[in-house]
């Protein structure tokens, strides 16, 4: 068993489940936003701000953001271990992805809780 090289979870199964779960959360979010756009007659700043004022929406958005990051990391980790046999390039690529992912989370939290 290749134990040391799971990307995020503690096992291959864990990674696999995380990726499916995050996909479902992202889909739910898109559907929910779609519902908002479809049922709101006019998208004004007030309507938009009202949507994000509730704690539910903030938590839901953060959850989705985390899902995006987890999904992207597991996916790109797999792609990089498939197509980047050179360790230096692979590690550099993975480092960049990690930095982007973490920045997205920090930035997202700032936006959500400062509105």
């Amino acid at each position, binding site marked *: *068993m*290749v*134990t040391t*090289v*799971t990307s995020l979870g503690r*096992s*291959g*199964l864990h990674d*696999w489940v995380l990726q499916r779960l995050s996909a479902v959360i992202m889909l739910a979010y898109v559907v929910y936003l779609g519902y908002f756009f479809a049922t709101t007659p006019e998208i004004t700043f007030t309507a938009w701000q009202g949507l994000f004022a509730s704690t539910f929406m903030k938590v839901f958005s953060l959850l989705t953001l985390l899902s995006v990051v987890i999904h992207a990391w597991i996916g790109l980790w797999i792609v990089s271990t*498939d197509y980047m046999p050179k360790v230096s390039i692979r590690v550099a690529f993975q480092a960049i992805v990690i930095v982007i992912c973490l920045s997205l989370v920090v930035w997202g939290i700032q936006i959500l809780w400062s509105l």
Partner: protein
Amino acid sequence: MKFKIYRYNPETDKKPYMQEFDLDIPEGSDKMLLDVLVDLKEKDPTLSFRRSCREGVCGSDGLNINGKNGLACITSLSSLKSPVVIRPLPGLPVIRDLVVDMAQFYKQYEKIKPYLIADTETPAKERLQSPEDREKLDGLYECILCACCSTACPSFWWNPDKFVGPSGLLQAYRFLIDSRDTRTEERLADLDDAYSVFRCRGIMNCVDVCPKGLNPTKAIGHIRSMLLKSGV
């Protein structure tokens, strides 16, 4: 009919090259591709390939025929378009001409412990199994280890040292589902890393090429649900 055959002798050739042959094949001939290779070898004894049973049982003449992996002995000429391009199985090191080094393939096979392990007392005659339990092995035990599937699988090309590959996983499932085997949990635990099973991306190249009509992708799906259920 035209044939283009991959030739490479590492002792004399700097690079592999394609050798062309032109053969008169009577219209409606039911010759198999292996017969042609045997004929060609008579003309040019340096041409190397593996074969044994000549009837799709031993699994030794897996080749890449017009871009698709298959057994030369059960591929009839009438099913092929001229020119017939014959290459060794992709992704494995070439030893010479159409002969590849299967070590990596066998290593993955070995890894899944392809034998029954039963911790129960050895019976006087044999370990019994109900007809229903026996039926579960259908579509699994028929594998002849020809490597057509694994060498058609991109995931196996990229990680032949870590991804077990369709052939090995089909056999892994064959022992996971065997009612007489008592090491199911252990077998599952051995497979639960990011590569062994989970590198399968469901491309189904394996199903497309298997000369025995087996379905490794389905077996891999079963292993996944077993892992999920046992929650390791």
